[in-house]
Structure formats: C-alpha cells, structure tokens
C-alpha cells in the first residue's frame, strides 16, 4: 500500500504516536492515506480505538519485528 503521508513515531511512547498521527491526519486531505510507524506496543490498539471514535478508516496494520505500520484513510 502506498501512503500519501508517512509519519515516523518509532521509539516514542504513548501518547506520542497518536499525537503525531492526529496532527498528520488534520493536515491531510479526505481520501488520503497516512502511514504511521511506531514501536510503542500500545499503538495498534490505540490507533484502532481512535479511528473508530473519529471515523477515520484503519485500513491495515502490519508488523515487522518491533515496528508496527498502520495505514489510515482520512475521512471527509
């Protein structure tokens, strides 16, 4: 999946990754895909909860070792 914006929040602990994601999403256009990279083990569940609450669509979560990559489509 090719994102429009990539945010690297690796080695940041809660709430760093979510703050970085929210900031990137607020700057993106509806329909664009934001990729968040994080190592915080809470990030996948936090992003899942945040997406459900805000209406942005969590497309996919992948994991490579300690690094999670989460793809979020910005809602309109």
């Amino acid at each position, binding site marked *: 999946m090719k994102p429009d914006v990539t945010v690297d929040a690796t080695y940041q*602990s809660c*709430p*760093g990754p979510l703050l970085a994601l929210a900031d990137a999403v607020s700057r993106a256009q509806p329909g664009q895909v934001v990729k968040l990279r994080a190592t915080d083990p809470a990030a996948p569940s936090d992003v899942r909860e945040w997406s459900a609450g805000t209406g942005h669509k969590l497309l996919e979560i992948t994991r490579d070792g300690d690094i999670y990559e989460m793809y979020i489509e910005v809602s309109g």
Partner: protein
Amino acid sequence: MSKIALIVASERLDKLFPAVTLATTAAISGWEAELFFTFWGLLALKKGYEPSEVSLDYQAYQDLLKEALASGSMPGWRTVLEQGIATGRVKIYACSSSLGMFGLTADDLEEYVDSVAGAATFLGKAKDAEVTLFVS
C-alpha cells in the same frame, strides 16, 4: 460528544503527565475535556511554569522520567497540553480559592487558562462527563 472532566491537584511532573495525556488524547479523539486546576495543581498554570520534580514518594525514579524526556521518547507535558488546546476542545479552569491562597491573580496565569472558576462551575461542566478523575 463524549466528555472527560479532570481535577488536577498536583503540580508535579508525574501527576501532570497523566492529566494532560488523557485530556489531549480525549480532545484529538473528538471528546471535550474540562480541566480544573486546584490547590498545588494551580501552580502548574503560572506563566512559564516548568515542573522539575516528581512526587516525593517517587524521587528514586525521577531520573528515568527525565531521561525519557531528554531522549524525546516522551513528549513534554506542555507540548501535549498545547496540542489538546489547539483542538479547541480542552478547557482549563483555575480554582479561585487556590488563586487567593497563593496570592496570585488571573494575570499571573498562562494565556490558555479559560477562566477562574469555583467548585459549582466545575460541577456544572463535569455533571455530564462520562469520565471524571481526580489527579493528585
């Protein structure tokens, strides 16, 4: 819209962190957050305040927190708070009686303080909050 209401009664680093983390996370999730700073917590609203100490019980761990801040793995408490305030959904209230106790006036407080308020005002803001916490 969901709402969180917090009473912040300490100015120490280890108390401010959970308070602003919850408030800002709520705000970026579309919630309203109402924060009432009272007693020692009010000191955190003084212009330019930078906490340097954790609570006395946890001083042995203070360096761990400072290292996390210095390395950037944890964002600063004010950075977190300001991102919440930028959403327009975080409201900051300064306890009027604590203000008087410390001999301060509203002019001594940060610009982002919404108003000086009393207990009844906070109760009115908090009565329909789904989450209410006392942080001390």
